[in-house]
């Protein structure tokens, strides 16, 4: 852990009726780290992520970003400082790719030439040809669309990126390529990334640190290596065992070939 925490969550609780989706979750995220939030469906990981950009307000607890309580900033202003990428992608269908990518800049009042220059830069960064700027979202494949989503989230140079199952709807090849591209961007731009996924393999391969949420509580918080060595309780080991056994079976297949 290097430097002061960029993001601090303290005792976050969110109830849906009698059931607690989040039950007193506390977490500190260091600047520059890539944290994966892993857990089975309904474990509260998406809810936790959305409390950070105030798409969901917690019942209790506080979130501090760069040292200040996020409730002191109106949600739109807060969200302009946080990149947000999610499974639904949500490109604006009535705007072309360039206009989609430049939206955060437009909201911030940047002028047209500055926006256009930044759009080309971002298309390069996410690995799309520059002439994609004039295309409509409905002319893109799923992987291309999510690359545009990623570029849109990065446009205003946010210090923090929130990613909610960003590759969930993509085919395995695209998913792998985009995951690695994402990690490379994270390293190159020096951002802090918090990524929700239910895929332990993806988490183990991309993240510096894995936080396992089960039933709204943190059950493990460790590096991928520590988890592979068998850290955490039985449920956590159960999650890690799946990719491990798959890897062993694949290796066995390879040895036989």
């Amino acid at each position, binding site marked *: 852990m290097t430097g002061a925490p960029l993001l601090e969550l303290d005792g976050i609780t969110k109830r849906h009726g009698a059931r607690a989706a989040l039950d007193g979750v506390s977490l500190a995220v260091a600047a520059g780290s890539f944290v994966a939030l892993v857990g089975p469906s309904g474990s509260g990981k998406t809810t936790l992520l959305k409390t950070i*950009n105030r*798409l969901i307000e917690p019942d209790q607890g506080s979130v501090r970003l760069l040292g200040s309580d996020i409730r002191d900033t109106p*949600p*739109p*202003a*807060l*969200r*302009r400082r946080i990149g*947000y990428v*999610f499974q*639904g*992608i*949500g*490109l*604006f*269908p*009535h705007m072309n790719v360039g206009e989609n990518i430049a*939206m*955060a800049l437009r*909201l911030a009042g940047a002028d047209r030439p500055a926006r256009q220059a930044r759009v080309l830069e971002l298309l390069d960064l996410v690995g799309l040809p520059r002439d994609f700027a004039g295309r*409509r979202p409905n002319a893109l494949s799923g992987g291309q669309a999510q690359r545009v*989503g990623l570029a*849109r*989230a990065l446009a205003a140079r946010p210090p923090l990126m929130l990613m909610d199952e960003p590759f969930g709807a993509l085919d395995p090849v695209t998913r792998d390529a985009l995951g690695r591209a994402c990690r490379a961007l994270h390293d190159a731009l020096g951002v802090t990334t918090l990524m929700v996924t239910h895929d332990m393999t993806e988490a183990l391969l991309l993240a510096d640190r894995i936080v396992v949420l089960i039933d709204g509580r943190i059950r493990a918080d460790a590096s991928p290596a520590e988890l592979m060595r068998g850290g955490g309780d039985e449920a956590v080991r159960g999650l890690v065992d799946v990719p491990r056994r798959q890897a062993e079976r694949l290796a066995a297949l390879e040895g036989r070939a």
Partner: protein
Amino acid sequence: MTGAAAEALAALPDLVRAHILLSCAALAIAIAAGLPLAFWAAGHPRARVPLLAAVGLVQTIPSLALLALFYPLLLMVDRATSLALPALGFLPSLIALSLYALLPIVRNGVAAREGLDPAVLEAADGVGMTRRQRLLLVELPLGAPVLLAGIRTAAVWTIGAATLATTVGQPSLGNLIFSGLQTENWVRVLVGCAAAALLAIVADALLALIESGLARLSAVRTFAGLGLLAAALIASQIHWAPRQDRPLAVIGAKNFSEQYILAAAIADRLAAAGYRTEIREDLGSAIAYRALAAGDIDVYVDYGGTLWTNVLARSDNPPAPILRAELARRLARRDGVGVLGPLGFENAYALAMRRDRAERLHVRSIEDLSAAAPQLHFASDIEFLSRPEWRSVAAAYRLQFAGSRSYSPTFMYRAVADGSADVISAFSSDGRIAALDLVTLADPRRALPSYEALLLVSPRRAQDAAFLAALRPLVGAVPIGRMRQANLMVDRDRDKKSPAEAARWLLPPSPPRPAPAPRTPVSAPRPAPPDIPAAS
């Protein structure tokens, strides 16, 4: 019927202009109120059901009734507050049509908002849009095609329903349709319907162009549609005829031929005296008098007995001169309304039967009718059965018919002619009484009051010497025989005349005042009044 066609077409530009102005204003208000309501309701599911129910409920009220309803409502507001609200004409029409246009706009607005992809809305929030930015940059552009479909529906409805504004004294294409129906002048009806249909088709086509432009994200189509729509609106509102700054006189008319003819005759007199004239026709009895008292119209012709029973709520039955003097005194004192004088004929309600039928049943008076009534069918005009006169006759002679039905006057005469009714509530000045060989039944118990036609002027005009001087020549100038003939000219099936033509035959206009600029008229001199044989 080239005369009728030419006359209908001559009236068309002004009516089209008024029709478009009213429809557009109503639609603009409905959009301005409906869209925010719809988007608000989409975010408040609990408000949505009652809101949609409320705008749907408005829609279930027949549009004619909705228009008529705002007349008394506005009068009440006018009395309760010090606002000088015009209860007749543009305002009630505007309110009613706006309410009517709300349903498709609100319903499609809600649908447009609910049809938006939740992922797109989440992205809009996630990228840091304020609510307002989300509305303007995402929700409205994406919902536009569905919104516009609602606006298209509303536009077509409004243009159609605006024809009904005629009944509350707002000029519209309905003027041609209603007066044409009443006088069976089908050319007028056709011209009015065709013009309204054409307006609706053009409006719909232009809005469709904008809609397709928005749906296909084509700026060319969108702006072409908007541009054409704006151009059409502006062009329609330009007064192509040179603007006249002569004072305006508004003449009222109820909904039958005699009223149209007299209104046209009054208009001729006032035009000759230098006034710009406008005729508000198809007013109901009660509306016409109140409109006069409120100054919404300047002059119209009403009938002594009608005023006596309906306006003054009297049930006694004095002789005509006393009734007239008493009316003049009371109306002036109560409402400031002036009774300029009698036109010279009476248009009484009279019970009438076909001559052959009356003779077979030996019915000469209403007295004789009371015994035969239980086997007879009665047909009346639309208001008669709810008027005090009917109650008075029914009570005086103990009339109990086998059945009774209400018709518009034209169809009431048809009913007695073809035998589907035995007795009708005829009008004594009606040319059709002689034309259809009807007999009017005597009223020995004097249950029906005198119905002298009287010229009434509004409180303001009652003080206006020039205005009164222009109309005074009409007093005593219309004998009953001439009125019947003029009515028949308009009502008969063959060689039908328009009310304006009949008016010129009935009261040939005095030569116009010498115009300030010397200019010879291009048109041929007016045709001499045709020599009409007495109806027989």
